[in-house]
């Protein structure tokens, strides 16, 4: 039994942990309203001039677009392929299953820089252009282990008898997947889509190697900008990303409820 005092302490500790994670972001957002020409905290002003300044730097808006497109592509591809892999690894027994699982999950244990370099070499060796598609492939590789993991966990929570029951009732493989398996692993798939999107959007290491003048993701753009400049433009750009993410979360919470999206059932929510 948790005592009231312990409960309060736990709550306080949780609040502290959340604050620790969120404060840097709040700091950046605050800095974006500064009127100075350099990054300072606390900001002076407030002023919107750095937000207007983004419009003069089209490359940030382009990079944001590249990031979104790459993240969407990588997320969808990683989740789709990851789901297939998860089904094979969980539902089937075949020679070499364990080693294959390790192979699929291997990118997780490699530093991003190493992977980035390797991918760069690979594309160069085969004379493949470093464009958005190359970036998508690179991001798909680094995010797929997470996709596989999420879907595997969801799949393992589904009694295999249920799929057998569907088949015995006349559903072939595809129909069983569509009407029975998929709805039941949906939380895992959604988690995979969201997580891989975030991972891809945030990625710096691999993107650094695969970026080219035609295809530069937003993190790389920000990173290279800071190298040379000290003005608060990047804080405004980052703040915009935060606003978009925040709005998306708000919309999801209103429409479906973030908890339910990730599989938290009605019962659990009501006992809160």
């Amino acid at each position, binding site marked *: 039994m948790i005592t009231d005092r312990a409960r309060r302490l736990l709550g306080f500790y949780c609040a502290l942990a959340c604050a620790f994670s969120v404060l840097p972001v709040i700091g950046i957002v605050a800095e974006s309203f500064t009127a100075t020409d350099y990054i300072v905290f606390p900001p002076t002003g407030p002023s919107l001039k750095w937000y207007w300044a983004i419009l003069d730097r089209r490359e940030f808006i382009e990079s944001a677009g590249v990031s979104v497109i790459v993240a969407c592509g990588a997320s969808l591809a990683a989740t789709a392929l990851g789901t297939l892999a998860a089904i094979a690894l969980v539902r089937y027994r075949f020679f070499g299953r364990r080693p294959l699982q390790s192979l699929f999950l291997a990118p997780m244990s490699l530093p991003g820089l190493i992977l980035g370099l390797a991918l760069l070499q690979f594309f160069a060796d085969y004379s493949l252009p470093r464009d958005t598609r190359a970036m998508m492939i690179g991001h798909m590789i680094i995010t797929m282990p997470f996709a596989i993991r999420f879907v595997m966990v969801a799949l393992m929570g589904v009694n295999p008898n*249920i799929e057998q*029951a569907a*088949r*015995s*009732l*006349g*559903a072939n493989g595809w129909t069983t997947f569509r009407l*029975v398996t998929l709805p*039941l692993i949906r939380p895992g798939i959604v988690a995979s889509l969201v997580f891989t999107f975030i991972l891809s959007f945030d990625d710096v290491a691999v993107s650094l190697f695969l970026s080219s003048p035609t295809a530069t993701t937003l993190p790389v753009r920000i990173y290279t900008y800071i190298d040379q400049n000290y003005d608060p433009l990047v804080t405004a750009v980052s703040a915009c990303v935060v606003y978009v993410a925040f709005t998306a979360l708000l919309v999801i919470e209103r429409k479906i409820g973030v908890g339910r999206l990730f599989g938290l059932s009605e019962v659990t929510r009501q006992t809160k």
Partner: protein
Amino acid sequence: MATVELIDVRKSFGTVEAVAGVSLRIAQGEFVAILGPSGCGKTTTLNLLAGFIEPTSGEILIDSKPMAGTPPHRRNIGVVFQSYALFPHLSVFDNVAFGLRMRKVASAEIATRVRQALDIVQLGTLEERSIRQLSGGQQQRVALARALVIEPALLLLDEPLSNLDANLREQMRFEIREIQRRVGITTVFVTHDQSEAMAAADRLVIMNKGIIAQAGTVREIYTAPRDPFVASFIGQANVIPGKAVEVNGSQVRIELPGGDIVVASRLPGVPNDGSVVMILRPEDLTLSNEPVPGHNALAGTVKRVSFLGSTVNIGVQVADQMISVVAHRDQAVPEEGRPVYVVWKKAAEKLFPKP
């Protein structure tokens, strides 16, 4: 409503032979229970019939059509699993309707047939409920309705009552039998519970170590078991080792470990000398203060008296073995520690060669 035939079916998983040559013929509308200890191959046999796995060798025919290469969704079967395996994201109605939707039955007809099926299992009022709100027994019935509504050629039940409490199990075993009789579907029921199998089935198939030990009606198997395994698996049995010492026409004298000599009926296949196993059913034995003429008798001491409601189970120590005797609750029972004779009519014993 189909016939089922297994012809020398074998299934190996790597080096383990789970099913080692099973041949069986099931008539239309028959209710067959496959019974056996864990690991005997009964569930594997069921999975082979359903098509979830393919045999390593041998043939399976449903309605005289070979099933090799036919996947489960084309076999026209209904399966009830031990875990019920209901679709948690669908309502009771949608669960039961699933098979019909797969068969592209018209909506109006689906509604009628689903309601009928739910009525048969006495769940008529729970159509719109979600699965999570049902009790074990109710889920069990939904699973049964779901399998029956499609009117399959073959109904397969894999230990469907194992997850229910004792009272519900007893009730459900008769209900399933009732429903099966009414609908007339050929049924294969797998269980490890002998009273369940005996209560529900037309015929029993006892499996052990991947093969059929014996198949027959309940009465046949009970009164004429083919080997000590079957004799002890069905009903209760006292297993007494002994040595055949002398043959006298149709009778053979058996020497028991304690030195007692009994006279048993000679059976074909049992050696005239050498080790034998004698099986005595507790209800064939009575207790007496003196040996009874015309009966075999063993001297012993009463060690345990257990009142079981309708019967009394008495444990009698004979030589170094405990023999169980079952008496009606109204019969006079000697107290513990009393010397007594265990008596049985000639030919009530079953003699087998030592396995």
